[in-house]
């Protein structure tokens, strides 16, 4: 069969006789001959060109010229065009999902950002929970010495089973709005400054709370204590 096939090709390839007459009205145009190599060329056009070219030596040589140029185009594309065009669209496979590298990279960065945010959110919640647990477990005794209104003097004191490094006092009005925040102090008692006393003069009571700063970068909150301001 092999010998038969080769022989057929050789016979069909017999070089054309020199033309004696030129009448190429029925020949396909060079553009059509070239277009017949395109994948989107209609099959009818391809078939009519193949039928014509098989019997027309003049068109056959042009067909062969175009065929050779297609090989040239393919080789040039493989060597010089493909690497450049494929580079920006290089695809990466990840768990069976094949995407261009830039899509995969942006998806990865977004995923990383979401995971980080979730981690930060959860760890913050956990730390808050831990702080609340500690504060609730602590036995902190709060007490006041009040002289009201004349002379006005309010001293706040506290005793903590686990000593803190620093303390901060927060004073709220009777509607629980923050009125004043002390600086960090190391003593177990403090006297409210005159400006705070002035703010409290119209109130029947106020609230205060102690923030205890331990050495583990954690803040413990005492219970909120209500203090009545009664004329003595």
């Amino acid at each position, binding site marked *: 069969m092999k010998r038969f096939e080769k022989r057929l090709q050789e016979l069909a390839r017999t070089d054309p006789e020199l*033309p004696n007459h030129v009448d190429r009205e029925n020949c396909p145009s060079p553009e059509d001959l070239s277009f017949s190599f395109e994948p989107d060329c209609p099959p009818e056009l391809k078939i009519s060109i193949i039928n014509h070219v098989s019997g027309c030596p003049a068109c056959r040589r042009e067909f062969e*010229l175009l065929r050779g140029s297609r090989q040239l185009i393919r080789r040039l594309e493989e060597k010089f065009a493909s690497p450049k065009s494929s580079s920006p669209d290089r695809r990466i496979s990840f768990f069976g999902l094949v995407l261009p590298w830039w899509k995969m990279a942006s998806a990865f960065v977004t995923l990383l950002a979401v995971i980080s945010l979730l981690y930060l959110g959860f760890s913050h919640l956990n730390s808050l929970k831990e702080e609340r647990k500690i504060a609730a477990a602590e036995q902190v005794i709060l007490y006041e010495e009040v002289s009201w209104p004349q002379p006005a003097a309010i001293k706040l004191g506290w005793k903590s089973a686990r000593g803190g490094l620093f303390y901060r006092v927060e004073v709220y009005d009777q509607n629980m709005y923050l009125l004043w925040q002390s600086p960090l102090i190391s003593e177990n008692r403090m006297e409210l400054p005159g400006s705070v006393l002035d703010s409290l003069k119209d109130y029947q009571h106020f609230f205060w709370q102690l923030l205890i700063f331990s050495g583990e970068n954690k803040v413990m909150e005492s219970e909120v204590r209500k203090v009545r301001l009664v004329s003595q």
Partner: protein
Amino acid sequence: MLSRQRKEREFQKILDDFSVLIRSLVLRYRLDRLGLDAEDLIQEIRLRLWKIIDDEKNIHNPASYIKKVVESAVIDQIRKIRREEEVVISEKQKLISELEPRASHYADPPGSIKDYLLKAADNLMDSRKTVVKLYLLNMSLPEISAYLNYSPAKTRNLLYRGLADLKAILRDMGFKHEKI
């Protein structure tokens, strides 16, 4: 990214191979008589392509540009061949027509083996006929697959069945395998 020297070498190699093909076509079909100069064609393609291959930034889609450049250069040559052919042959025809009856254009001598071969191929089933005719045009299996948008398996199947049919038809026409 290829270095410039490497690109130059590979480009030269590809064009050299193409040059061999064009020269063989020129010799076989005596296209030099009709003004096709293989070196001119290669040189034109070389000049137009090297610029864009060397400076990749200029062209958005190099693949399509390469194709356009080569195609248009070859089509221009084909047009030139046809124009020259018309002039040369019509002059020749004037002389011949005074001496002998008008011959059919480009036809092989009637009754040649090639003529019988083409007639036999015309009797094949349409799907097989197309593939066999392309094969007789010296195209390879991958080339036929690409040309017809067929899978290699389908092309191979149609070709082998078509060639077997062709053999049977030629036998019926009085040709024996040994003769072919």
